[in-house]
């Protein structure tokens, strides 16, 4: 009975998860982008937690908590502060406009569903759409990175990819061995920080963080 509940919650959140990544992709404001990211990670945490309870792998709770702390609070906060410190313009510059990017991203989602959707071996104990969802999150993240101009939005895209991976890990294999989990979290954190450092360096050197300016090295 209660298992049913949890399962439906999981499904619901996973949908919300996907939708949020769309939102993240199309939101015109940098702040809203980051907020969406926070929400995205929040959903992730929820899924993790419920998975933990659903099939009693309690070490997932730790990673759920970590997700909640790191991704929905710490990293967004870092970004907010960074934006204020950089005092940069708030809207997201993209190469292709919103409708078009929506079109593309739906296509990507389709591809991911088509690509890995009905693979015989891939029917995890939970439910098979998770693989496709995480793959599509992956794609959306990369799509974001390729179409956005600002260094910061690229970092966001990267984090989006990270979330996708994490979802995959949680839902198909109930998480890696703990050691690995911790390591990965650590890496994500350090990575985010280092990138932050470099964002500052870039601003220092190139006044502004448009990646377009970083095209001196070619050929």
């Amino acid at each position, binding site marked *: 009975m209660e298992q049913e509940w949890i399962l439906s919650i999981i499904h619901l959140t996973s949908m919300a998860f996907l939708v949020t990544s769309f939102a993240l992709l199309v939101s015109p404001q940098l702040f809203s982008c980051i907020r969406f990211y926070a929400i995205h990670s929040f959903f992730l945490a929820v899924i993790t937690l419920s998975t933990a309870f659903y099939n009693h792998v309690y070490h997932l709770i730790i990673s759920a908590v970590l997700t909640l702390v790191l991704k929905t609070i710490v990293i967004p906060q870092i970004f907010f502060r960074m934006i204020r410190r950089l005092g940069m313009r708030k809207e997201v510059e993209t190469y292709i406009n919103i409708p078009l990017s929506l079109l593309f991203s739906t296509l990507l989602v389709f591809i991911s569903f088509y690509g*890995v959707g009905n*693979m*015989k*071996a*891939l029917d*995890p104990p939970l439910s098979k759409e998770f693989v496709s969802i*995480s*793959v599509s999150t*992956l794609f959306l993240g*990369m799509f974001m*990175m390729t179409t956005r101009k600002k*260094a910061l939005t*690229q970092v966001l895209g*990267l984090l989006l*990819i*990270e979330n*996708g*991976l994490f979802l*995959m*890990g949680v839902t*198909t*294999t109930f998480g*890696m*061995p703990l*050691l*690995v989990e911790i*390591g*990965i979290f*650590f*890496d994500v954190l*350090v*990575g985010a920080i*280092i*990138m932050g450092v*470099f964002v500052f*360096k*870039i601003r*220092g*050197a*190139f006044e502004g963080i448009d*990646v377009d300016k*970083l*095209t*001196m*090295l070619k*050929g």
Partner: protein
Amino acid sequence: MTLVHLLSIPLVSGFLAVISPTKKLVRLFFVLGTLILAGYSWYFVFRTGAQTPIFMFGENLMMDALAAIFVLLITTVGLLSSLYAAGYLFKDGDLAIPVIKLRRYVFFFHLFLFTMLLAVLSNNLGIMWIAIEGTTLASAFLVNVDDKKSSIEAAWKYLILCTVGIALALFGIILVYYSAIAGALGEQENLLHWSLLLKKAKALDPQVMKLAFIFVLVGYGTKAGLAPFHSWLPDAHSQAPSPVSALLSGVLLSCSVFGIVRFHILTRIATGSGFSNGLLVFFGILSVAVACPFILVQADYKRLLAYSSVEHMGLAAAGIGFGGPLGIYGALLHIVNHAFTKSLLFFSSGHLLHQFQTKEIKGVRGLLKTNPFLGGIFFLGILAISGLPPFSIFVSEFSILSGGFAAKRFMACAVLLFLLILIFAGFLRHASNMTLGTREQEPRSEKSLLMDSVLGLGIVLVFVMGFYIPAPLQSLLESASRIVQGVVS
């Protein structure tokens, strides 16, 4: 506890360097650490012979022959690079680098060594992934020691692209893990252990493994600089200080190839088909093909060398893909030879940069007249890297090609040969423009015995390996190639 010692040495010396007050001390720990590391690794590997895998930490760490080769590679090139850097970065006078930066440099250098060692020594695929990600983060700072615009840009691209790639690799690893679970290999804890997976590889689901291999190939391939994921490589390698470039292109790329190889072995056994071989050959040849035009028409000699790294990683990948004793032996030998030759060349490029104050090829003329020692070594190095006998690269290239013929991949070999000719032409053109001929004004140069001796050592290595491979190394290579062929010993 030997592996632990091995891993702890760089950490300790890095830490010592950070806390040491004076430049002299920093330099001391810098060189001493790598020296001890290299000495210890050689002693350790050749005492054990590394024929049978050595496990540690509940099988999380493992050193088999394959890993041993890479350990030796990392520590040796690390030693050379640190020796060179001790002369190159720690110079006094007008363009002396502040000690803060040096401290930072030394720390990250040793951290970098540590992560690479961890990467090749870890039996747990997850830990390997973490370590490789770690190499990116550590070396990002090495790439930009001087906060110049260009080096920041290079570092940024390096960081972003490699992190993305690595993320994809993680996805692959998760898939492998999943298929291990799905294959019901039982005990949960060490399902990521390569040695275990190898034993149970038949039980892994082929479809999933294919998917996993794709992600890993793209992911680690990005780090290994296989085309078309190589685009960060020329920037990073040309912007990093020469000793670092040597380390990046000699060893780091090889480590990521190592990662791919581990997965390739699993995939081949699991799918029981040449799926991964085909992909490896394809991307190998693609890398050579992509590198070719950039080598033919190139204005910057460090980028030239960087692109040749792309080419050689491609060759190694192709060799692995060809398979068979010749192909794989050739590929492994090629990785070793390339590491030494390429670091030699990057060192001499450091000399060039220091003497001519430009990375432009047309800024360097008549080197043989002005500085016969450097000119000679640079020219020979170029000939060596473009695969001319009696230098070592020729041997490995030839054995890769014969591996290809043995595997009946004739077209692939023909294409490779054709591309190699073009690349050779490009290299020869640049080399003869730079070294031969006359030069009007004298370049600035003060002798540094340390750096010169490193160059001398390098060229001797490259030359000797051309016709003699020491017996222990030989046996290492053979057992390693047996591992890659999937012959479980």
